[in-house]
């Protein structure tokens, strides 16, 4: 069966997109890797777990309930690794329906065929390398939200929380609420940056109030907050023991650090949609029209994967994308207006600016510091490759193996791109991005090969001599 609409990713954007499409009668399927939909912000607790109820939990439950009632075919616990169809057809052939290859929750591979595809793949975290960032005990800031909110685990006993953006204060407040100690908050943003963000945040008083509550809790606990500062090194004997901020040394057994979120554009890159480098949106993003359409017909992107705008904006963007798909398929004439979206986007944009890549931090990476931890590539190796003539990120990859390891450059790609651009004195956009390739996710070889036979390989006729 060919679906009308497939949605990849079951975060707030994807849940809302699938709900909207299915409730207009489109044959809709949602594919999500986690055992339950929710995405990063509304990730469900493991079965049999109960935690403190909060606004996030309620918002996530509401989206899940609407989705369950919508009639969309929900495929959770499945890893989508392969993308095909659409524009990925032999040259000259007409665009085909999209195909998604996945490994099911039971380990059985399956394929989905769909006329329209809405990508809601979210983000991953950016960590700008610094000396000691590979030490055990150093984890991502967004990663810490998963430990604290979903697993109910403190990353350490005495924790430094560092980086940029609202997650800093969310994590610090959750550590305190969970009974941990916050040794310090190290915020890359200055007081002035936060003041400038206020007017846009006021568009979402609920978010502003939440932020104020987090800060009050830190103040009451006497947690030092250092503004306009960066972690300069982490050290310890085999595991983290100390965090250095300039000449200040702070004893800690965990450091939660993140410098913003990077849109997950593997799928739009694989489909060769047009992209732009927009630092204020998180980096490389697909170029969209006002209704979430990418440059590829019947391919849409919504949520933070299409440019970081935060959890509040994601569902509205998902609905707009679904309505565009319904219109384009001739299934419904759904309006595209969403008043809440504009307000949420304004607040989200102010936060995203704060989480944008900070070139000065990249510039400060010392030569011997590892940038690509999968392959052990240092800054010095990247600079040397640039001097040897690597101009694009794909060339850097071939020269140094940077970004070629198991994470496929998701952790280091941005820092590596910024270093290469700085070495050549060009904007980051000029060094390009790594070509999108499948598999999107690591999967066992058998899943990819399937019931493959050499006789199936099409052999083109030899060219006349």
């Amino acid at each position, binding site marked *: 069966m060919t679906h009308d609409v497939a949605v990849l990713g079951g975060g707030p954007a994807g849940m809302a997109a699938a709900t909207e499409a299915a409730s207009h009668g489109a044959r809709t399927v949602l594919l999500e*890797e986690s055992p339950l939909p929710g995405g*990063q912000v509304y990730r469900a*607790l*493991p*079965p*049999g*777990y*109960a*935690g*403190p109820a909060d606004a996030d939990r309620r918002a996530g439950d509401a989206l899940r309930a609407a989705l369950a009632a919508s009639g969309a075919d929900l495929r959770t616990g499945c890893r989508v690794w392969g993308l095909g169809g659409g524009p990925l057809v032999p040259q000259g052939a007409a665009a085909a329906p999209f195909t998604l290859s996945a490994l099911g929750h039971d380990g059985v591979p399956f394929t989905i065929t769909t006329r329209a595809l809405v990508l809601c793949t979210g983000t*991953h*975290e950016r*960590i700008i390398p610094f000396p000691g960032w*590979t*030490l*055990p*005990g*150093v*984890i*991502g800031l*967004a*990663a*810490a939200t*998963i*430990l*604290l909110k979903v*697993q*109910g*685990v*403190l*990353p*350490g*006993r005495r924790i430094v929380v560092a980086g940029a953006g609202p997650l800093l204060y969310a994590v610090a407040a959750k550590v305190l*609420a*969970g*009974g*941990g100690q916050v040794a310090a908050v190290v915020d890359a943003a200055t007081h002035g940056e936060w003041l400038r963000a206020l007017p846009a945040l006021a568009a979402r008083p609920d978010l502003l109030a939440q932020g104020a509550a987090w800060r009050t809790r830190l103040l009451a606990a006497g947690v030092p907050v250092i503004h306009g500062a960066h972690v300069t090194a982490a050290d310890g004997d*085999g*595991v*983290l023991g100390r965090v250095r901020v300039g000449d200040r040394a702070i004893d800690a057994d965990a450091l939660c650090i993140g410098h913003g979120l990077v849109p997950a554009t593997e799928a739009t890159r694989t489909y060769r949609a047009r992209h732009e480098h927009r630092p204020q949106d998180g980096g490389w993003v697909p170029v969209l029209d006002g209704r979430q359409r990418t440059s590829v017909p019947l391919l849409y992107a919504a949520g933070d994967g299409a440019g970081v705008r935060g959890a509040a904006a994601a569902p509205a963007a998902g609905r707009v994308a679904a309505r565009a798909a319904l219109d384009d398929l001739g299934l419904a004439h759904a309006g595209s207006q969403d008043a809440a979206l504009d307000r949420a986007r304004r607040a989200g944009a102010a936060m995203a600016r704060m989480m944008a890549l900070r070139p000065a931090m990249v510039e400060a990476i010392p030569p011997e510091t*590892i940038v690509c*931890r*999968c392959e*052990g590539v*240092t800054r010095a190796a990247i600079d040397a490759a640039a001097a040897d003539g690597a101009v694009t990120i794909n060339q850097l990859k071939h020269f140094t193996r940077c970004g070629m*390891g*198991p*994470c496929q450059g*998701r*952790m280091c790609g941005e820092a590596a791109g910024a270093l290469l651009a700085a070495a050549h004195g060009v904007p980051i956009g000029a060094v390009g991005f790594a070509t999108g390739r499948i598999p999107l*996710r*690591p999967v066992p070889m058998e899943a990819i090969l399937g019931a493959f036979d050499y006789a199936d390989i099409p052999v083109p006729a030899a060219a006349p001599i």
Partner: protein
Amino acid sequence: MDQRIAAFSRPAAVTITVRGRPVVAHPGESLAAALVAAGLWRFGEGDDPARPRTAVCMMGVCQQCLLRVDGRLVQACLTPVAAGQVVTPA
């Protein structure tokens, strides 16, 4: 040492074996979270410059949390704990 937050209720604890030692964990929590809760941050040794390896992203992206569970290679952050699992380095 247990770094679990008391305000969560969870299924009764079980025992898994990590590098030959018993570790108390709760069924359903991620293996990565269980190791962190036990203060076991070193996920893998080896001689690569970025070793010892350790979980970074908790969401399946960084691939730094690879371990073997009953001999099978898994991402610890995406693998739920079950009683009796035998965990060895990747």
